[in-house]
């Protein structure tokens, strides 16, 4: 883009500023190409080109310009970037310029200059605060079809990127530090010097492009007899040279949470034309600090007057920034409007750079200080005890209406007169940035002397210093910060000393603002011109008064009714002014009115940075078994079970799912099947009270289990409902091995730990999750024994030597294994556990040895069919947290002998045995081929009207290839007594209801003969 470089803007001074004139860049705004320099922000570059109109307000679509020079900007929001690198609502005052930057104005149509939405401004009288609560109600249908769609269309500021997939990358990182200093202005630098000198690990973070803070915008201050900038440069250099200091710029601390946990958002590459591949766009830092120093300075407050939102009206401090940091003139003919001394610095600077200062309008009746005298000495007209009543001009401020006022009441006392200006530099006083301090539940106190809130008590280990602490004079702030930095280091355990405050020379000033919460106006009450408190959300002083008239008195109600402080600048400029007006209206002092709660984020923070890399493949762990590769090689389809990927079925030769599952089921019943069961939760129990603990956990007995034997158990929640199930085996006197469901493993472990740690700490039990330690392969079917024997098994597998529900250590194919003789298919089964790393090898051995015996791998779907044919439940499918063991027909597993177990007392409640509870039954459809959708509900009469009387739902439903008909289980009200009855299942897909009969849950081999092969 440099080929046809446009001319540098006409408002750029020929020298000065912190821009790099050697590197001119060009950028586009609303389709037009402009020139600027490296080191500019988008805002300064636009101003350099004389562009003031940069956006439209939210509600009235009023033309808006650039108000500030920092992250408190409410007006100058733009879309930056293109394609999948575009982002909306970026503050032009923060966006660092780079070559090729493309920006667009927002919330206007068709163009920024001519915006149809601006009719809202003409109709503004009909749209006071909260007008929408009072209208759009009739006729009712219009709301949905007409009013709301229009409101929604008008909503929002910028547009999100059309291309949804963010081209950029984000990162998160963690850091422990002794001292974290937020804010790299003069105070932050002083604090850092003190803290770092002690050897403490210090982090110094600042949102701006370089350290120095507001001092970078000042021109008439010296430190140690030299311009303040020299001191900043030296200090930064000194800090950079220290290995215990980490400096982060373009980094905003946005959150201050419990226990000195703070979050930072670093803009790593937003200022570059191209993101280098190795860097993320932004990075979130999570900091745990021993002590925190808040040195965030203050925000300058606007003054409230008619038309104070017009482009060309700026904060007085911002005007100095544009001149001193960027060598840009924000106007040619200025009026200063102030209630304190600080803005006089702006007046003098404007004069220095040749801008005509048409007048200084000072609300104070008799200001007297060096600065005021200097201004007068230069021949500036100072209207003391005056106020600006209104600012005129269509797209830019043009004429100011000014009058003398009663300095106490704000009443207009003199004839108004008019002054032309294209720049208004205003200052309404200063607000220490207590936001982070308050987020951390520090207390604030109202300082009547300085007219602002100041930090008082701390909740966390922190200290506020400098302007952030309400110390506004430079020397005082530097000393405060030097001491604060040392105290922080000491609190973090270091021996520290405050560095000496250098000699400082700055004009002495009266910072105390003379505040008039009542806006001076000569208009009839109620007809005052629109004077904005919250610029972006178009909240005016009259809106706040209206809210109070209507009974919205709490500061929260006013905020919510008017939306004051809810814009993207989060009330940084508006909150105190709104509070002031509110307190005036209520006749209550500000501290009694109170503030709204300060919450993170302190400034809006990119979601991408908070998500970091916890998305896409890293969104959640994907757990794979050791045999995963084999399943993939053999064409398995997979299903998600919790975090696990499990082989679902193995289609061969273009089989459909149904065909594959039918084959796997049949082959397992006739020959043998092999299942990867590694995902089952496995927990190792040790300790002399392991048996006792199991007795308390499960409904049945475990302490009496013989070594080497296995037992199935049901675990209940304390409400008596089934929580998990599995087989537990006694491996030794004080050693058990528990299995849980795949999905429930983590929950069960934390459940048990909670009981052990909080209720029964006296029990000697140690739990270890060993799910990943063991690979588990189940061989099931009539040929199972033969296959293991063919592979060479060190122990006898006969029923006598190795009965059902027992366990043995063995060698299989020369590998050490644990074999459990348990079955989830109803067939002769061996569950073989092997050290995980041998899992695949064993699987392969088994496949080979099983080939002559027709061994078939089967997936989770066939497993479900096999167990459903047998009426075995799956916790989470047959149960849903509202099913007790009796409901499942498993009363046999609930011990009557044990004095207690979790859920016992709950099970004794009278409703637990009611006949009309939902009970587990089998369902056989009239049409053997009809498979009832899982989740379908049974009714007795399918033709009844809505709401229908429902009996309950189908929990599992499959086609049984072995039986040649479908099998299903259902939880039906009073089901156990309804065997043989006909029920209907209405469909929701428009199909006819399915007719079925209630049966027993065991469809296959009801006697259980096949368990021994």
């Amino acid at each position, binding site marked *: 883009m440099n080929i046809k470089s446009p001319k540098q803007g006409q408002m750029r001074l020929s020298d000065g500023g912190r821009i790099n004139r050697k590197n001119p860049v060009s950028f586009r705004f609303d389709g037009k190409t402009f020139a600027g320099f490296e080191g500019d922000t988008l805002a300064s570059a636009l101003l350099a080109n004389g562009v003031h109109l940069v956006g439209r307000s939210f509600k009235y679509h009023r033309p808006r310009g650039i108000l500030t020079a920092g992250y408190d900007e409410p007006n100058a929001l733009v879309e930056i970037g293109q394609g999948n690198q575009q982002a909306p609502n970026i503050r032009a005052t923060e966006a660092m310029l780079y070559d090729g930057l493309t920006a667009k104005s927002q919330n206007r149509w068709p163009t920024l200059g001519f915006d149809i939405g601006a009719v809202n401004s003409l109709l503004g009288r009909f749209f006071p605060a909260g007008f929408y609560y009072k*209208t759009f109600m*009739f006729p009712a249908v219009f709301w949905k079809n007409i009013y*709301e769609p229009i409101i929604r269309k008008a909503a929002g500021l*910028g547009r999100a990127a059309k291309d949804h997939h963010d081209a950029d990358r984000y990162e998160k990182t963690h850091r422990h530090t002794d001292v974290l200093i937020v804010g790299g202005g003069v105070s932050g630098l002083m604090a850092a010097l003190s803290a770092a000198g002690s050897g403490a690990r210090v982090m110094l973070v600042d949102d701006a492009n370089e350290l120095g803070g507001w001092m970078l915008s000042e021109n008439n201050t010296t430190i140690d007899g030299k311009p303040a900038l020299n001191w900043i440069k030296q200090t930064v250099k000194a800090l950079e040279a220290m290995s215990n200091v980490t400096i982060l710029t373009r980094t905003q601390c946005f959150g201050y949470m419990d226990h000195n946990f703070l979050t930072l958002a670093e803009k790593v590459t937003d200022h570059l034309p191209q993101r280098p591949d190795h860097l993320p766009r932004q990075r979130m830092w999570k900091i745990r600090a021993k002590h925190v120093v808040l040195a965030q300075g203050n925000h300058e407050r606007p003054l409230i007057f008619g038309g104070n939102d017009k482009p060309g009206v700026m904060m007085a401090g911002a005007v100095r920034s544009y001149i001193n940091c960027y060598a840009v003139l924000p106007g040619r003919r200025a009026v200063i409007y102030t209630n304190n001394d600080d803005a006089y610095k702006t007046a003098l600077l404007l004069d220095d750079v040749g801008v005509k200062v048409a007048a200084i309008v000072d609300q104070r009746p008799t200001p007297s200080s060096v600065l005021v005298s200097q201004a007068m000495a230069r021949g500036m007209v100072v209207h003391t005890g005056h106020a600006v009543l209104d600012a005129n001009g269509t797209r830019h401020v043009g004429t100011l209406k000014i009058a003398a006022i009663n300095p106490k009441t704000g009443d207009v006392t003199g004839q108004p007169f008019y002054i032309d200006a294209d720049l208004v530099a205003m200052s309404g006083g200063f607000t220490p940035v207590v936001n982070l301090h308050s987020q951390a539940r520090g207390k604030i106190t109202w300082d009547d002397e300085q007219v602002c809130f100041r930090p008082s008590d701390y909740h966390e280990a922190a200290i506020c210093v400098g302007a952030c602490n309400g110390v506004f004079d430079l020397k005082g702030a530097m000393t405060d910060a030097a001491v604060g930095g040392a105290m922080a280091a000491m609190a973090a355990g270091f021996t520290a000393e405050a560095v000496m405050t250098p000699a400082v020379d700055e004009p002495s000033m009266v910072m105390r603002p003379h505040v008039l919460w009542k806006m001076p106006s000569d208009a009839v009450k109620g007809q005052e011109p629109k004077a904005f408190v919250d610029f972006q959300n178009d909240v005016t002083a009259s809106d706040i008064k209206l809210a109070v008239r209507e*009974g*919205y008195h709490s500061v929260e109600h006013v905020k919510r009714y008017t939306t004051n402080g809810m814009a993207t600048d989060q009330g940084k400029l508006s909150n105190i002014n709104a509070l002031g007006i509110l307190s005036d209206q209520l006749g209550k002092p500000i501290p009694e009115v109170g503030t709204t709660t300060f919450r993170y984020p302190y400034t809006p923070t990119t979601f991408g940075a908070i998500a970091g890399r916890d*998305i896409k493949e890293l969104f959640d762990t994907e757990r794979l078994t050791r045999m995963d590769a084999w399943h993939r090689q053999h064409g398995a389809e997979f299903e998600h079970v919790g975090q696990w990927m499990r082989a679902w079925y193995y289609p061969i030769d273009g089989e459909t799912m149904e065909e594959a599952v039918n084959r796997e089921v049949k082959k397992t019943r006739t020959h043998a099947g092999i299942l990867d069961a590694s995902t089952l939760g496995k927990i190792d129990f040790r300790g002399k009270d392991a048996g006792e603990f199991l007795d308390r956990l499960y409904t049945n007995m475990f302490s009496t289990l013989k070594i080497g034997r296995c037992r199935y158990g049901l675990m209940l929640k304390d409400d008596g409902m089934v929580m998990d199930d599995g087989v537990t085996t006694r491996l030794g006197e004080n050693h058990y091995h528990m299995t849980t469901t795949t*999905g429930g493993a983590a929950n069960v472990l934390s459940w048990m730990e909670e009981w052990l740690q909080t209720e029964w700490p006296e029990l000697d039990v140690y739990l270890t999750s060993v799910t990943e330690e063991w690979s588990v392969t189940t061989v099931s079917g009539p040929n199972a024994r033969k296959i293991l024997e063919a592979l060479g098994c060190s122990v006898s597998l006969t029923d006598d030597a190795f009965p059902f529900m027992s366990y043995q250590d063995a060698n299989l194919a020369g590998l050490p294994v644990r074999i459990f003789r348990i079955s989830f298919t109803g067939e002769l089964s061996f569950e073989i556990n092997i050290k995980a790393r041998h899992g695949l090898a064993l699987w392969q051995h088994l496949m080979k040895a099983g080939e002559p015996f027709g061994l078939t791998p089967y997936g989770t779907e066939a497993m479900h069919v096999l167990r459903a044919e047998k009426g075995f439940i799956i916790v989470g499918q047959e149960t849903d*947290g509202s099913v007790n063991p009796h409901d499942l027909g498993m009363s046999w597993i609930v011990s009557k002998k044990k004095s207690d177990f979790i859920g016992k007392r709950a099970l004794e409640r009278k409703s637990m045995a009611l006949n009309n509870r939902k009970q587990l039954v089998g369902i056989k459809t009239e049409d053997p081929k009809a498979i009832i959708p899982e*989740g379908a509900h049974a009714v007795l009469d399918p033709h009844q009207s809505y709401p229908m009387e429902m009996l309950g739902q189908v929990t599992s439903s499959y086609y049984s290839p072995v039986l040649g008909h479908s099998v299903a289980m259902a939880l039906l009200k009073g089901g156990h007594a309804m065997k043989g009855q006909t029920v209907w299942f209405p469909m929701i897909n428009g199909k006819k209801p399915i007719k079925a009969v209630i049966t027993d849950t065991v469809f296959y081999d009801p006697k259980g003969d096949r368990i021994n092969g």
Partner: protein
Amino acid sequence: MAESPDRGARRLPGGKPKYSVFSLMRNARRYHQDWQQAWRSPEPKKSYDAIIIGGGGHGLATAYYLAAVHRITNIAVIEKGWLGGGNTGRNTTIIRSNYMWDESAAIYDHALKLWEGLTQDLNFNLMFSQRGVLTIAHSWHELREMSRRVHAIRLNGIDSDILTPDQIKKLVPIINIDQSIRYPVMGGFLQRRGGTARHDAVAWGYARAADDLGVDIIQNCEVTGLRRKGNRIEGVETTKGFIKSPKVGCVVAGHCSVLGDMADIRLPIASRPLQALVSEPIKPELDTVIMSNAVHMYISQSDKGEMVLGAGVDKYNSYAQRGSFPVPEHMIAAAVELFPILSRLRMLRHWGGIVDTCPDASPILSKTDVKGLYFNCGWGTGGFKATPGSGHVFADLIANDRPNSIAAPYALDRFQTGLLIDEHGAAGVAH
């Protein structure tokens, strides 16, 4: 059907001037100087026929229906802070009635039907917006659960449609239905009558309408004790003194255990933080409300353009309206995962509320062992949607000293009998 500007329509039943486009214009002519207070700020009287503790949506609705339906107008609502400052003013405003259990369907659909005319009933635009609530399934297990829900919901006569991923994409263009993501979108079910409403307006609308009927709304007044005589309630101790009443309804959500304690009633409630956050406003991108349990977050776009995000409760008990950072951190990752467009947007505000969760994730609407003392609580993460229904049946319970058929299953004794209404499935991702 345009609003008739005749005199009769200009006033609410109690005599307050009505809001309408005409009143807005009339007032505009007078530069909005003549608007009346939405509600008075009276000092408490010595005694009332009934006292409602808690000026959230549920408490205010209860007071309104006591006055409007049961003609009991000598009542006070006592609020320790500002109206709606509890969960009513902190929630993410999702409204739906597609619950699975019959008992739940009954109360939530009763509420939804009331919502459908509430703006007009209260003469306050609640911005009730029926733009559909879509719940997404990400696994076979969730599809099965969804099927169960939809069957039950439909047989209960409540609207619900199952959508395929492609249909979802059509409805919600910004959602990522790429099947290769960690938890791909496999389907979903939609309640078209579901949607959102403006939370503050609900509190204010009920307050204004109740005040119009003579209800005293007393803010900045904390109840510090429940005075009993024998087995009867006598009244409430407050920071503004003792106030007598034969009937006291406690509707204080996260603080119900504290109130329970004052009457020696131990409630089966755990109070936990629930967090939510919004993005900066952007031009409309999302019309439907979306909830995902497995990826774990829910999202909607407000009329102002902000993306509103929420997820599950923090796992610890607390009365601090904050919560811990990992919860929003995960919720944001989940949102970016399903809606990549969010990646470049920014979080604007974040907050937390204290939700009153019951062991079965269903509310309590109940008499107690103390005669004249009633509790309405346990709405946990999802009671905003029930506001009108809850107030309506609770008013009935207080007025008649017996629960009606909708309220009956929600009595406290269910924790003794075990007749729980387990809605954990519905509350998995809080809403």
